[in-house]
Every structure is written in structure tokens, then in C-alpha cells.
């Protein structure tokens, strides 16, 4: 594990759980373990200069009372949508991207949460399948947390893979900005698991994606899991329209296609950097000198700041053209963009979310 942990706080009701035993063993004696009757206080911001960053280093293990499975929070009737379903198995992330929406989303409870009853999600998945037989679902764990950042100490990916690999109706997506693939290489996914990476040019990585693996390391990790029987996908999201962006993103696509044949890529997604004014304020406060937070964003009808229309659509099209020229039609979608923008980029109206989700799941 490459990330620092200051403290492990465990709810009494989670004491002795498999997850806690794994964490205690992996972290060793260097990280103090505290057992508490009520973990809610431990979730709150610490009285320090940067409570969000401090929260990233404080793991709180507790039972989750809310459902683990939910529709992707980015989905909306205003946008073309990919039909992604989210499993919430953790909250917060040890990495620290300047643009990350978690700075707003978990501002009031920034500790890194893990759930000792995470295997309860399997019953929810069975229930989902029973409610819609014959359907295929793409389920991911990378929305409120990175899917693999803590995997070397939690081992959760192995439990998930062992569950989904025998279930034809499920495709698991593990979304990450790390190269923490050790557990994946030890497990046979039987074609049911997509590992996806957010990819950004070197300039964005250096400026904004703190403690993440470099773009080249992510691409190398993708090659490795591909060889181990996983499907792979890439998220060009957020795309940041800085002055040299088009050239840099196309260079990144070239680097990717030099390493991975286009026809082996299960899908790619694109989405412009989008921030609510509150998020932008929080991000600017924490990263006042990050130029990537100071693009030519304007306020859209949904209350989010994005690069103005012509600029971001141009970037989407440039990337899409480059992939098309690579000779294989890689399934692609836009995140949090309207149907009209989708049509401009791909030349066709988007299918409904369930259909898109199913196509991406089946591959």
C-alpha cells in the first residue's frame, strides 16, 4: 500500500469482522487501532487546517445501514446517461485530485469509510437480478472511492470478483487512478470484470492528480490486467480544456493505442471538468495555484461550471476522431452531457441508459 494511514477507528459492532482482521494485519502495529461504540463522531472533520486531507488518512470501519447499490449519482434526465450502477463500498480516497467532487460531497464526513458488512451487497445484487431476469448490469465501485487504492489492505476486489465471475448477468467495473493491481493478477475474472482507468495528460497529472499513478503507469497496469484476462476501459474524465489540451490529449491517446490495441478496449468515456461553484471554491482554497482549476469554465443550466460549449465539444470530437482513425470502433459515451452534445460528437442520438449500460456490460 502506497498511502499513509494515521489511525484505524473501528465500530464495536465491526470488531472481529473479516475486513477489520485484514486491516489490522496489513497495517501492523504502526497504526493505532481504536474501538468505539458510535463511529459517527469519528467521521466528522478534524479541527485542523485541512480536515478533508486529514480525513483521507483516518480509516473508519463501521456497518453500512443504507443500501450498497444505487443508481449513479451523475445520472439525470437532462443528460445522456450510461446506465452505470454504483456499489458504495467505501467513501473518500487516499489520493488527492484538486478537482475531486468529494471535496464537496464528503466535506462534512471526510474520514475514509469502509463497511464491515460489505458482503451484504451480494444479496442486493441477487435481488436486482431477480427483479429483471435476462438483463445485464454494469456495476462499479469507483464512484465515491477509488476501486483499488486500498485493495492491498482490504482485499475487497477478490471478494467481488469471486462473486461476479459466476454470474453472467453482472459485469463488475473497478475504476482507478492507481496501479494497485496485485490482487487482480492473482484472481481469474472469467471475463466478467472490467478494470478502467481515468486517463489524463502528464500536465494534468502533475498539476492536479496528487498521489495518483502516472499516466504511463496506469497504461502499463492496463496492459498487465488485460493479459491476465480482464477487460479494460478508459475514462477521459475530467477532460480539462487548458491551452495545449487538444495536442496533449491526442498524444495521450497515441501513447495508449501504442500500448493497447484499440479493439481490446471495452469502452471509453469522456466528460469535461465540471464543478459546482461550491466545489470550485473548496478546490481553489485547497489548491490555490493549480492552473487546471482556472480554465474557461462558464455556468451551465445545471448549475455546474464547464468549459464553454464549443471548446469542450471540440475536444470530445478530436478524441473520438483519433479513436475512429485507429481502425476499431471503441464503444464510447459522454458523462453528464446532453443528448444534443452526444449527437454532435458521435453523430447519433444516445440510446436509453439501460440499453447503454447493457451494451457496455456485455462488451
Amino acid at each position: 500500500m502506497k498511502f499513509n494511514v494515521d489511525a484505524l477507528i473501528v465500530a464495536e459492532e465491526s470488531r472481529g469482522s473479516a475486513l477489520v482482521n485484514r486491516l489490522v494485519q496489513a497495517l501492523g502495529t504502526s497504526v493505532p487501532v481504536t474501538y468505539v461504540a458510535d463511529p459517527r463522531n469519528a467521521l466528522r472533520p478534524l479541527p485542523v487546517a485541512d480536515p478533508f486531507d486529514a480525513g483521507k488518512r483516518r480509516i473508519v470501519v463501521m456497518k453500512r445501514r443504507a443500501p450498497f447499490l444505487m443508481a449513479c449519482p451523475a445520472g439525470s434526465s437532462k443528460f445522456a446517461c450510461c446506465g452505470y450502477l454504483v456499489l458504495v463500498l467505501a467513501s473518500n480516497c487516499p489520493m488527492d485530485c484538486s478537482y475531486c467532487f468529494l471535496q464537496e460531497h464528503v466535506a462534512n464526513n471526510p474520514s475514509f469509510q469502509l463497511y464491515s458488512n460489505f458482503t451484504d451487497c451480494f444479496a442486493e445484487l441477487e435481488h436486482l437480478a431477480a427483479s429483471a431476469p435476462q438483463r445485464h448490469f454494469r456495476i462499479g465501485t469507483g464512484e465515491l472511492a477509488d476501486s483499488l487504492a486500498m485493495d492491498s489492505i482490504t482485499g475487497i476486489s477478490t471478494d467481488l470478483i469471486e462473486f461476479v465471475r459466476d454470474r453472467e448477468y453482472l459485469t463488475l467495473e473497478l475504476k482507478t487512478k492507481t496501479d494497485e493491481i496485485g490482487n487482480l493478477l492473482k484472481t481469474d475474472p472469467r471475463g466478467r470484470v472490467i478494470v478502467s482507468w481515468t486517463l489524463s495528460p502528464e500536465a494534468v497529472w502533475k498539476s492536479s492528480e496528487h498521489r495518483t499513478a502516472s499516466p504511463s503507469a496506469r497504461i502499463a497496469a492496463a496492459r498487465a490486467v488485460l493479459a491476465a484476462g480482464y477487460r479494460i476501459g478508459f475514462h477521459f474524465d475530467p477532460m480539462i480544456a487548458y491551452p495545449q489540451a487538444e495536442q496533449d490529449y491526442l498524444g495521450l491517446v497515441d501513447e495508449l493505442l501504442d500500448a493497447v490495441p484499440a479493439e481490446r478496449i471495452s469502452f471509453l468515456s469522456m466528460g469535461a471538468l465540471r464543478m459546482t461553484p461550491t466545489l470550485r471554491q473548496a478546490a481553489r482554497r485547497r489548491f490555490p495555484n493549480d492552473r487546471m482549476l482556472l480554465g474557461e469554465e462558464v455556468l451551465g443550466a445545471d448549475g455546474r461550471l464547464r468549459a464553454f460549449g464549443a471548446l469542450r465539444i471540440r475536444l470530445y470530437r478530436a478524441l473520438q476522431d483519433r479513436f475512429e482513425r485507429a481502425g476499431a470502433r471503441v464503444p464510447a459515451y459522454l458523462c453528464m452531457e446532453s443528448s444534443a452534445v452526444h449527437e454532435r460528437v458521435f453523430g447519433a442520438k444516445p440510446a436509453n441508459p439501460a440499453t447503454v449500460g447493457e451494451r457496455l456490460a456485455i462488451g
Partner: protein
Amino acid sequence: MTDVDNEIRSLAAAKRLPDSHLEKWLHLDQPGRVAVLEVARSLKLRTAQIVTALDLLDEISIREGQPVGTLLARPSIDRLTTGAGSAPARAHAFLEELRAMRFPRLRETIERLEAALAALRLPQGIKVVLPRELSSDELTIQLTVSNAEGLERFLNMLMEKRGELARILSMLGGGDEV
């Protein structure tokens, strides 16, 4: 504390400038602090205008890697701060110039689109409106008519201009001309 800092504090107190922006102002290097003070005085900037100017200058400075003093010494700014005209008009133009520096591609694209719209030479009853700050890729076309003949004339005119309108829509959608 320097004399300049005292003058800034005094102006800030008189204008009831928020503490956060006084801090931002005092955090600039000496030439930057002085330059903002000179602009604020010569253009008689109001409180909200000082706040906007400090925010824009902060962001432009980070984007371009240039200190605020250097930004304010640019000829396009200097012309406005020392030129002729009323203080309110120059203050307005000053903030517009800062916005153009902060959003250069947006400003350039808007200018290009407005030029293309002007070249259509549409009559007064037809108004083609660009999306606010180009936040979307949609054009709004408004017709003001009072009878069927007028409506038909405008619709025919729009049909005649559909090629140019399509080109403008393409520009809005990131076409090659942008």
C-alpha cells in the same frame, strides 16, 4: 506596515471591502499592491468592482504565471486607466478587459460568432441570440411579427440564410472555425 499598506487599508475601510479581499490585496507583491491602488483610485472603482478586479487579477496571474503589477502594466490596461473618458465608463471597460484576459478563447469565439451573425444582415424582426457565455451549443431565433405576410417573409429569409446559420451552429459546436 508600509505607507502603501496604510493607504490600501484606509481605502478598503472607506469602501467596506470584505476582509477576504483586503487580505488578497495585501498578499500581492509591492508593485502589484501599488498598481491595484492606482487603478482603484484613477477609475474610482466601487466596492464590487474592486472585488471583481482582485478575483480576476488573481486568476489571470496564476493562469499566465505573471505578477499582477505586470498584468496591469499591459498597454490594453494602461490605455484604460490613463486614457480619456468618464471614470465609470473606463471602470466598466477595465473590468471587461480583465474578463477578456481571463477568458481569452471564450471572448475570441464570441467575437467571431457575433461577426458571423452581423454578416447575416437580418432585419429587425429577426433576432438570433447566442447562448449566454456560450455555455451550450444552441442558438435561439426570435421572430417578432404582427401579420401572416411578415411571418412568411421572415421564414423565407431564414430559409435563405440556413447555410450561414448552419455554419454558425457548427462553430457553436466546436467546428473547425473555432
